[in-house]
């Protein structure tokens, strides 16, 4: 290659680049300023409302919640409640996820797709509350009740995400494998499942975000431990500081799992792909 006319010494930036970097830095600074301002204003208004506009016992401010948190941990119920709720999520959503993924893969068959079409639609549009109540009234406090509720609200979400992936399957690969007489099982293993992997991850993340909410809802009705149960007791005893502390601690935990843990794994696994679909 011929020597270029403007050979730059490494480390020396042109004036144009300098200007761009300064601009970007200013943008970032401004963005952070407003972001922090947002936190200050919202938390400030919350703190102000509590005790001045609304009764402090009804709406405890952020400082009260921070003070209540160690008390809950000392009470010893904290970790067992988290454990109970997480177990329910694990069992209920685990089953729904498994079924949803299998069903999603089976939607390649138009017959199965037609058979379950209305089931997924119904599951998506109906409120989780009705499944919680129906499950309860049929099975009482038995585990089937809440498993049924969590299952009915989340399986379709998983299925729809997987079916989305099935629709995007590279048609030429499928056609070619069929033309060369590759067996169905092998086709699933070597084309479909690897292709679906990112969709499965997305389904897991979205399913979880709904799954924990419906789990807490079932606990409000049918449990003697867990976050939902503690929320119900706290609100019935008008201990709103405990109520908010339970809610917010699990809320933060669930968001952490969803946005940080799952998202990070997703990005890590699929960085090699040029575009992570959906």
């Amino acid at each position, binding site marked *: 290659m011929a020597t270029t006319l403007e050979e730059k010494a490494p480390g020396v930036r042109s004036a144009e680049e300098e200007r761009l970097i300064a601009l970007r830095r200013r943008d970032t600074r*401004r963005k952070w300023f407003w972001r922090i301002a947002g936190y200050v204003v919202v938390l400030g208004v919350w703190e102000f409302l509590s005790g001045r506009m609304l009764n402090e016992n009804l709406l405890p401010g952020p400082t009260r919640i921070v003070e209540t948190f160690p008390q809950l941990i000392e009470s010893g119920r904290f970790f067992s409640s988290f454990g109970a709720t997480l177990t329910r999520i694990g069992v209920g959503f685990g089953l729904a996820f498994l079924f949803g993924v299998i069903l999603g893969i089976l939607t390649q068959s138009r017959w199965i797709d037609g058979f379950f079409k209305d089931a997924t639609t119904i599951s998506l549009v109906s409120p989780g509350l009705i499944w919680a109540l129906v499950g309860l009234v049929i099975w009482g406090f038995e585990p089937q009740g809440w498993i049924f509720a969590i299952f009915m609200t989340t399986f379709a979400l998983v299925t729809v995400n997987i079916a989305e992936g099935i*629709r995007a399957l590279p048609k030429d690969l499928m056609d070619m494998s069929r033309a060369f007489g590759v067996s169905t099982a092998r086709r699933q293993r070597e084309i479909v499942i690897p292709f679906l992997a990112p969709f499965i991850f997305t389904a897991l993340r979205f399913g979880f975000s709904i799954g924990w909410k419906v789990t807490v809802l079932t606990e409000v009705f049918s449990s003697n431990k867990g976050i939902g149960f503690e929320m119900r007791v706290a609100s019935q005893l008008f201990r709103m500081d405990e109520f908010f502390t339970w809610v917010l601690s699990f809320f933060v935990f669930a968001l952490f799992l969803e946005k940080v843990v799952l998202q990070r794994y997703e990005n890590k696994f699929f960085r090699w792909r040029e575009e992570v679909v959906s």
Partner: protein
Amino acid sequence: MSTVVTTAPSSRGGLRHVVGSPLTARVLFPFVVIGVWYLIYYTIDSRIFPTPQEVVVFMWEEVTLTSGVRYGSVVSNLYGMFLISIARLTVGFFIALGVGTVVGLAMGLSKSVDAFFHDWVMAILAMPALVWALFLGLAFGFGHEAPVLTVILAGIPFVIINVREGVRNTPKELFDMARAFDVPQNKITRHVLLPSLMPFFFAAIRYAYAIGWKGLVIAEVFGSDRGMGWTIKFWYDAHRAKGVIGYALFFIIFALALEKLVFDRLADRAFKWRPKMSAVELAEGDFGAVAAEGFLVVEDQAGIDATVSKGGNL
């Protein structure tokens, strides 16, 4: 995509063709459900679990107002309760739409406003409706306030996110060109900004309504003394399984009717002029997933999409 095409059974295909068609499978589904229902009925040891006939009879009595159960006043029947719920939903929905559109526009137009609200919008989006319902029920008592506020809080993040995303996706070249040709501002707004905002706005309406409905029934269970949510809780407390299941079916029928008869039609009409667009190219940024998926539903009438519940409240 419509997998279920009305396949006219060809005379050559014969019986096998008919049985194998997706439409047959779809028709078969309710019968299988009823079969499973009977299976549960005969296997579990429960004195209150009803048969399908009992539930149908119950629902029919509720519809024709012949059940003989009247709790107090004239409005306390299916229609009265339903109207109350719809009224609450509609009021909350329009407030959410109004406020959400203003905030969403501001967030789309200014990066500073976006940074200010972003995290809190996400937090409200991820908060279960149950929390609003329990808290607002205690704060406001059994009036209209708690359910309406729950609808607003459940729906507003969807409006904000979608409007914001819509503003961001307005093609810049069109603006530049309009300005170059000296098109007046009100014409730009009407012919450039609004049409490109439309699909997002539509997705916002759809989700705010669907999520608002789910939030509303929870709020009515915990913070109200009337409405559809309260009624299903009434039958639950009365230990009448047929009442609970019957009302659950009313809910499902309502939600399906809303989706199929109202929103699908509206979507068809609103976007007839539009060429197909791929949703993937819209997905940008962390909000993107939600908004683009919402958009996808509008474009792709595959039925109800994953987004219904995406990060949505129950």
